[in-house]
Structure formats: structure tokens, C-alpha cells
């Protein structure tokens, strides 16, 4: 290579570099979810909610005049896969990580994001937790770049027992039946903590293996022996379904208060067995119908189904993120993540259920909750059955909120 061609080459590449820096990078958001394998069903629901809301943001002009890029990464259901995918997402230039299913995976993602931000000041990434509800994520593991837009165990249990008590369905003897990992333990602890205020007694508590048990008959025999009026359980998926079916076939009279009864397929599979059981979630399409109706119909037009289970909370969370994006200016890299995080602490939106915001102390969402029961009278039926979720009580964001945990020591930037 001659000297002149070397000079020309260098000049050309310098020009290319300058051109690159002149135009801002589009904002890149990575969804790191379980998109394949046994637990994919929930991950796919998060995907549909995220796609729907990011689509809306892009219809309104995206961010900084460019379309927001949504990249999907399959974490294959475990923390190991998630750690790997988070690294890949950051390497691909993602500045915001979205994840929701499984508190075990979320625990890994939030630690990875925290460490990345420690090591790369100025190039932080933001983790928006769409639905992992273990307390530790806004407790000992809390940090400035983690935001939870869904309820947590304390909010779920607190609103559930309050709503059930008001509907005169709680009784005095409560059995806590939960899965043996962070989320299940949290539900158990919060059930015990609520006992005195709500005037019930936790007669027995059981932690069992997660999604390994086929036969719940022995557990039902224990509930029966404890003479429980109500079973409060954080179980989800098969662990909830099998527990309810075993209880019904043993003729158990106890009522179930749950966190995830609205998972698609549950009511369809359990049928009349689910009738009269309770669940507390951030959304019910029958509440505030003039606001909820247009949302669910538009959601159905875009995705082919009514939003259910984790979808509404995730969609509202992305909407809140969009509101915060409106408060910050685009930068060359996409967005100033620290400024975005600060904006997220201050913005609030009106969802069909009421006001949604994030409190700055621990970055937990403060959001309204709807306590509901499985009934034939519900307007929106679940799983093509004659049953649906009938709202019992709408609890405002303020009343639903649980206190900030002492274990959260957040290091704020600057």
C-alpha cells in the first residue's frame, strides 16, 4: 500500500466515523424473556404486551424521531440463560432490559445489570421488571436502575385478604400453602404479617417443591386436618391447578385466595372447581368499563386476544416508560439512562384502574389493585367457559401500597 492510499483510507474511515456520530442511534430495548421451553407460556404473554405498547409508542413517533427498536432474547427459563442473554443484549447496544416471568430469573438479571452499571459508569442500562414479584428485588437487591412496574408479594397478599375480608369470605383460620422459593416464602411471610390486622389466624404453613408435584391429595388432607376456612397461596401454573382440583375432589370446603388464578387455562381446566375462589390483580376489564373497554378491545384488535394475566400490568408499565421517555432528550447513544431513571421516579400515568407511578425510595410501582372472584356473572368470560372474574373491590394505589422495606439501601447517582 502506498502512502497516499493509506492517507486516503484513513480519511475515508474518519469521515464514516463522523457521519456515524452525527446521526443518533435509535433507542434499543431488549426483552429477555422465556420464549421457549416449558415455562414459555407466560413469557409469550409478556412479549405480546410489550410488542403492543412499543408499537403504540412508535405510532406516536418513537423516540427522538426514530422508531424504538425492540429486540427479543430467549432466556430459556433459567438464570443461567438469562445472564448470557443479558450480556448479549448489552453487547448489541440495548439500553433498557425488560423481563417479567420468574423471580429467580429476575434476581439474576437485576444483579447483572447492577454490576454492569458499576463497571461502566456513563453507559448504564435500565432494568424494567414487568412482573417478578419477590420482595428482595425491591429489598436487599434494590438498586437505582431497577424498576418494578407490577405489584409485589406484600401488595398481592395485603389487597387479597382485605378484599376477601370485606366480601366476608376470609374466615378465621387461614392455611398458607406456597412454593418453596423466594416468591412463595414472601407470600407466606406476608400472610403471617397480615394476620393480626385482618383478624385471622394462620393455622399452618407449608412450603412445597415448585412444579414437581403431581399428586396434591396428601396436601389437601393436611388442609382438611387443620380445619382451615381459607387457603392463601402464591402458587401458579400447575401447582395451583392441581391443588384446586385435588381440594375439590376431596370435597374440601375451604376457599382459595390466590395471586395467579387468572393465568390462561386455569379456569378452563378447573371449571366449576374454581368458582368462588379469589384473586387480586392490577386489572379487571369490568372495572371502570368506559376506560377499560376501549383498552381491551384495542388490545384484542392488535393481538387477537383480550389482555389477561400478566399482560395489563406489563402494558401499563411500558406506557409509564414511554411517559418517562417523553421527559428526556435523545443522545448520541440513544438515551441518557440515568436521566431516564430519574424521570421514571417522577412521572405518573392514568391507567383504566387509576394512577400508576413509581416511588423513588425503592422503585416499586404504586398501583391500584382489583380483588375479584370467579363467577358466572362476570362480563368477560375466561377460557371460553361460562365463568369469568367478577370484581369485588377496587383498591386505590395509595391504599394498596405496602411500606418500603428497610433492607433497601439505594445508591443514588451523583
Amino acid at each position, binding site marked *: 500500500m502506498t502512502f497516499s492510499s493509506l492517507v486516503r483510507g484513513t480519511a475515508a474511515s474518519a469521515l464514516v466515523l463522523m457521519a456515524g456520530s452525527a446521526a443518533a442511534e435509535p433507542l434499543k430495548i431488549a426483552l429477555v424473556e422465556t420464549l421457549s421451553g416449558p415455562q414459555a407460556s407466560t413469557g409469550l404473554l409478556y412479549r405480546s404486551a410489550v410488542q403492543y405498547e412499543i408499537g403504540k409508542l412508535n405510532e406516536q413517533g418513537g423516540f427522538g424521531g426514530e422508531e424504538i427498536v425492540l429486540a427479543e432474547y430467549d432466556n430459556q427459563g433459567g438464570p443461567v440463560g438469562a445472564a448470557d442473554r443479558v450480556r448479549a443484549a448489552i453487547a448489541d447496544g440495548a439500553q433498557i432490559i425488560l423481563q417479567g416471568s420468574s423471580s429467580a430469573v429476575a434476581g439474576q438479571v437485576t444483579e447483572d445489570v447492577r454490576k454492569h452499571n458499576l463497571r461502566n459508569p456513563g453507559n448504564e442500562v435500565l432494568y424494567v421488571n414487568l412482573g417478578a414479584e419477590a420482595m428482595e428485588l425491591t429489598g436487599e437487591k434494590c438498586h437505582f436502575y431497577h424498576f418494578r412496574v407490577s405489584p409485589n408479594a406484600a401488595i398481592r397478599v395485603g389487597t387479597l385478604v382485605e378484599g376477601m375480608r370485606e366480601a366476608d369470605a376470609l374466615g378465621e383460620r387461614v392455611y398458607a400453602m406456597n412454593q418453596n422459593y423466594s416468591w412463595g416464602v414472601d407470600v407466606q411471610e406476608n400472610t403471617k404479617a397480615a394476620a393480626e390486622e385482618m383478624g385471622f389466624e394462620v393455622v399452618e404453613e407449608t412450603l412445597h417443591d415448585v412444579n414437581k408435584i403431581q399428586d396434591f391429595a*396428601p396436601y389437601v*388432607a*393436611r388442609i382438611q386436618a387443620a380445619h382451615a376456612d381459607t387457603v392463601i397461596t402464591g402458587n401458579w401454573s400447575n401447582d395451583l391447578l392441581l391443588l384446586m382440583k385435588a381440594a375439590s375432589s376431596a*370435597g374440601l370446603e375451604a376457599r382459595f385466595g390466590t395471586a395467579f388464578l387468572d393465568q390462561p*387455562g386455569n379456569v378452563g*381446566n378447573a371449571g366449576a372447581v374454581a368458582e368462588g375462589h379469589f384473586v387480586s390483580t392490577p386489572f379487571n376489564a369490568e372495572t371502570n368499563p368506559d376506560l377499560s373497554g376501549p383498552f381491551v378491545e384495542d388490545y384484542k384488535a392488535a393481538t387477537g386476544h383480550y389482555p389477561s394475566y400478566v399482560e395489563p400490568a406489563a402494558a401499563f408499565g411500558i406506557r409509564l416508560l414511554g411517559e418517562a421517555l417523553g421527559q428526556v432528550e435523545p443522545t448520541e447513544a440513544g438515551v441518557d439512562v440515568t436521566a431516564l431513571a430519574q424521570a421514571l421516579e417522577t412521572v405518573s400515568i392514568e391507567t383504566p384502574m387509576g394512577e400508576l407511578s413509581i416511588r423513588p425510595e425503592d422503585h416499586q410501582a404504586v398501583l391500584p389493585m382489583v380483588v375479584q372472584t370467579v363467577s358466572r356473572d362476570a362480563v368477560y368470560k375466561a377460557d371460553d367457559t361460562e365463568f369469568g372474574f367478577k370484581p369485588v373491590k377496587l383498591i386505590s394505589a395509595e391504599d394498596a401500597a405496602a411500606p418500603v422495606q428497610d433492607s433497601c439501601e439505594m445508591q443514588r447517582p451523583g
Partner: protein
Amino acid sequence: MDQLVFALLNGTIYGLLLFMVSAGLTLIFGMMGVLNFAHASFYMLGAYFAYTLEPLTGFWAAILLSPLLVTGIGVLVEKFILRRVHAFGHAHELLVTFGLSVVIAELIKMGYGNFPVDYRVPPELRFAAFSISGIDYPFYRLFMGAIALVMFAAIYLLLTRTRVGIVVRSAIYRPQMVEALGHNVPLVFMGVFGVGAGLAGLAGAVAGAFYTTNPNMALELGVVVFVVVVVGGLGSMGGAMLASLLIGITNSLAVGSNLRPADLFALVGQRDWAEQIGGLMTVQLSSLAATLPFLIMLIVLVVRPSGLMGEKE
């Protein structure tokens, strides 16, 4: 006392269900030496076929036809897939059946969706058989147990009392001799594989209605079924029955107990010390119930590697 009766009954019935699925697996291994990873997938297929057929034919015909369909699929799998890789050895067979289980699970998801389907016990079978101190015992559980017992008796008699049984058993030990005597050994193997798959299909059709029919059901049961077969001794029908009952009953008793390791130390007056240590010492046995089968497997493998009633080393 009533609690104990229930625990034993629950454990026995669950054990019999495990036997229904593991019977086919141990049969296939005993006859053909193939460790069939896709076996629990046949269980799942049985449940989904019965779910599909039920609206057309009614419940009874569905649980009869569905195992036949699964048998057909088993026959095709043996004839067109397993037979081709048989020559390459066990590792290849293992991989093929593993791949097959993944393919079946994904096909089910494509056809029926990610969530449980509403396959339920028909209303006329949904009643309590009897009731002790306020707990109903569902008739359907007894029904499942009865089917498992009939199945055990039928297989046992078929293998020991009929001409077909003689041919099948001799085809295991001396296939070339049996072939020389004019029997079609590949046909025998195909039949055994088909019947084994069909038994799992029957278990699925019956149990899918009682538990749940979902795309993960193969995965959930598959591991325990392997434990049963290993504990019982690979290839031993009686061993599979014994191990199924052992695991079912231990599981059920463990769930009902509040025993903690710390309580054992109470025997030597060290309970307080053990409770201070915390951690494993204060874990209740009931929260480890689903792990116990693996502990049993570990102990059996250490003490008696061929399994409780296994002959082959």
C-alpha cells in the same frame, strides 16, 4: 389415625399411577434394551388424544381408543425410527428418543396451545366413593388404581401363561435362536414397543382427566418414572410395581409429616443446639417430599446397583 389411612391410600393410588406409566418403560427396556426417553411423551399423547376424542365418542370410548392410537404411533416409531438407529448402539437410540420427546412436546404446543386444556373427569364419575371424618375420597382415584392393578395382572399373565409370552421372553435372551425357529423377531420387538407405548397412553388418557392435560405433563412425570424404573430394577415388572408403591407411599407420608432433622437431635437432648444451627436442620420433611424419590434412588443405587428386583447388571 384417619389421616394415616388417607395418607397410605393416597400414596398407594399415586404409586399405582406411576406404575401404569413405568410399566411400559421397563417392559421396553427389559425386552429391547432401549431406554426410551420419549416414553412420558406417549403418556402425554394418550391424554391429548382422549381429550380430542371425548366430544366425538364419549369418555369411555375415548379412553379405549386413545391407547390404541398411541400404540399405532409406537409401532411406527419403532419401525421407521428406532429400527434404523438400532445398529448404531444405545447412545444413538437414547438420543433419537430424546429428540422425539422434544418434537412431540413442540407439536402438542403447536396444536393445542401452551396452556392446559379442559380435559376433565366426566360428571357421572365425579362422586365420592366414601368419606372418613369429613374428607371425601374421590371414586375416580380408586378407578385409576383398579385400572393399574388390572393392567399389572394382564401383563403378568400374558408374559407367563401364553404362547405369545413365551416367544417374547425367549426373543430377549436368544433372538437368533428364536428367529431360527421361524419366529419373526423384529415383529415381536415392534409389538412390544407398541404395547409399551399404548400402556403409557392408557395411563395418560385416564390420569390426564384427573390431573391436568398440559404440554409439560411429560416433563413433570418423566423424571419420576425414570426413578421408579431404576429403583425397581431395569426390566423388572414386579420391581416397577414395588418401586412405584414405595415412592408413592413415602411421598404421601412425608407430605403429612412435620419432622425436621432437628427433631432427631431431640432424641439425644440436642434439639436447641440443632435449632440454633438452623438451615437444613430446621427444614420440614414435607417441603422436601418431592425430592425424596431421588434420595431413594441414590440409596438403592449405592446399596444394590441393579435395583430392588433387577437381574441385569
